[in-house]
């Protein structure tokens, strides 16, 4: 059965009462979205927390909302739209993803210079090496192998560890805790333990970097704080590094696996790419749009009564801006359900929008470009070792993705 066969099939989960709803297939919005897209602004009940919150689905509505200073990203609001039972640390230990206004910009600035387009392009040769090394590792294994584990997770993890100044022997530690923090299956206790243990680890690392600074982001952020004269604590640093670590591996890993599976399931599109390697950049944009792994990762709270698409949202109400729905807006993306790697539109909301736009977007784009430039050239016989729709998915996770990707060649 192909993806397009399934698009018309009604999923058994369509009647699920609480949000997040399950996707019909990884590249098809949940069945409930059709009605929500019609309304633009809808009220839903969240899983876990049981909160009633608003979802917004319109492309222009979301873009306007996400540049509206009357919305807050702070996790401290009572109605912040968590769709699981969040431990208290999820509200207090957030770094800039959960800050507003000047606190947000001054903290984000400590990391932003590492991730500008110009700085990221300087990493190209090193990322090419990392990708080649991991393809060598994969090819040295006996097929079938779990591509997600061996390649998709390992490549961005290696890159982000180098950037942040985290030793490479800590991959398993961060993968385990990243999965607990962002995954959909974790208990509240597992989420809490993960945040506490990761913070403790980074605190130790901060001590080392204070004595022996390196060329990494953590060392530079400390130097920036010192130079600026701003008051800061280790807490500011470990929360920022944890945010960048999780944002820097789980997301890109999910996108590598989903995008690779998507190309394998759409051989006409893969052939286009193989015949014209210059299509890789537009292919990256299209695959990010098509999967929108952060569909449920753009939460806000209204700081005052606001009117959104004719609906009054009250001060204190939680809001989720659903990027997957917006990225299927036919006004912006003609034939939105069709995968077309030639589309190449960068208008999608796959990296969010506004001041909280993904700080690592240019790094992710470069990693994906290099991965899909090399992968099918080096392993032209790559194929799935399990029917795509039988591969378990991260339902209810903050970042959508696959739990594994068995491949053979």
């Amino acid at each position, binding site marked *: 059965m192909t993806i397009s066969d399934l698009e018309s099939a009604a999923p058994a989960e369509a009647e699920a009462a609480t949000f997040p709803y399950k996707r019909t297939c990884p590249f098809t919005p949940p069945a409930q979205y059709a009605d929500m897209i019609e309304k633009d602004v809808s009220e839903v009940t969240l899983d876990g927390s049981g909160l009633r919150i608003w979802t917004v689905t319109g492309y222009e509505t979301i873009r306007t909302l996400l540049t509206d200073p009357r919305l807050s990203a702070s996790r401290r609001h009572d109605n912040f739209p968590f769709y699981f039972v969040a431990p208290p640390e999820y509200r207090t230990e957030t770094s800039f993803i959960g800050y507003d206004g000047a606190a947000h910009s001054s903290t*984000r600035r400590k990391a932003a*210079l590492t991730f*500008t387009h*110009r700085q990221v392009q300087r990493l190209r040769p090193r990322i090419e090496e990392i990708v080649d090394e991991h393809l060598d590792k994969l090819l040295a294994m006996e097929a079938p192998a779990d591509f997600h584990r061996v390649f998709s997770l390992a490549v961005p993890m290696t890159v982000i560890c180098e950037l942040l100044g985290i030793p490479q022997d800590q991959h398993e530690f961060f993968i385990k805790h990243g999965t607990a923090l962002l995954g959909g299956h974790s208990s509240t206790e597992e989420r809490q333990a993960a945040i506490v243990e990761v913070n403790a680890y980074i605190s130790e690392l901060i001590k080392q970097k204070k004595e022996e600074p390196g060329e990494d982001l953590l060392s530079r952020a400390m130097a920036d704080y010192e130079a600026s004269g701003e008051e800061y604590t280790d807490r500011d640093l470990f929360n920022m590094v944890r945010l960048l670590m999780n944002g820097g591996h789980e997301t890109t890993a999910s996108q590598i696996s989903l995008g690779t599976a998507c190309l394998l399931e759409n051989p006409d599109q893969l052939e286009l790419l193989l015949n014209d390697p210059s299509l890789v950049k537009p292919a990256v944009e299209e695959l990010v749009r098509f999967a929108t792994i952060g569909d449920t990762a753009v939460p806000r709270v209204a700081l005052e009564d606001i009117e959104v698409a004719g609906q009054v949202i009250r001060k204190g109400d939680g809001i989720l801006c659903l990027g997957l729905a917006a990225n299927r807006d036919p006004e912006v993306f003609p034939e939105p359900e069709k995968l077309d790697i030639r589309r190449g539109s960068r208008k999608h909301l796959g990296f969010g929008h506004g001041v909280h*736009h993904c700080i690592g977007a240019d790094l992710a784009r470069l990693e994906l470009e290099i991965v899909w430039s090399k992968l099918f050239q080096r392993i032209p016989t790559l194929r799935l070792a399990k029917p795509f729709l039988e591969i378990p998915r991260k339902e209810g996770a903050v970042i959508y993705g696959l739990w594994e990707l068995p491949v053979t060649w």
Partner: protein
Amino acid sequence: MAKITYKHPNGTVTVVDVRAPGTVMRGAKLNNIDGIEAQCGGSAQCGTCHVYVDEANTLPLPAMDSVEDDVLYGTACERNEFSRLSCQLPISEELDGLLVHLPEAQS
């Protein structure tokens, strides 16, 4: 509130009142002024809200930080000494009367 003037490359001008809190970029987007893309929406990342502040400007602008400076090296139209990212120009009454020139292209 500040009156901001956006001058297009063909010489036409659009004048709008922009409210605080907001930015010169948001003022353009809310008023559907062509010539400001702001793909990222205001995080000083994409470089598609590039403007040239008028050479004769005497209004006090916030200092440019190292991130904005770096991003301005990647804009579609070449930067000059008057280049700014309009998302990094917050609206205040002090900016009342600001004139910015829009580049030929943003991406």
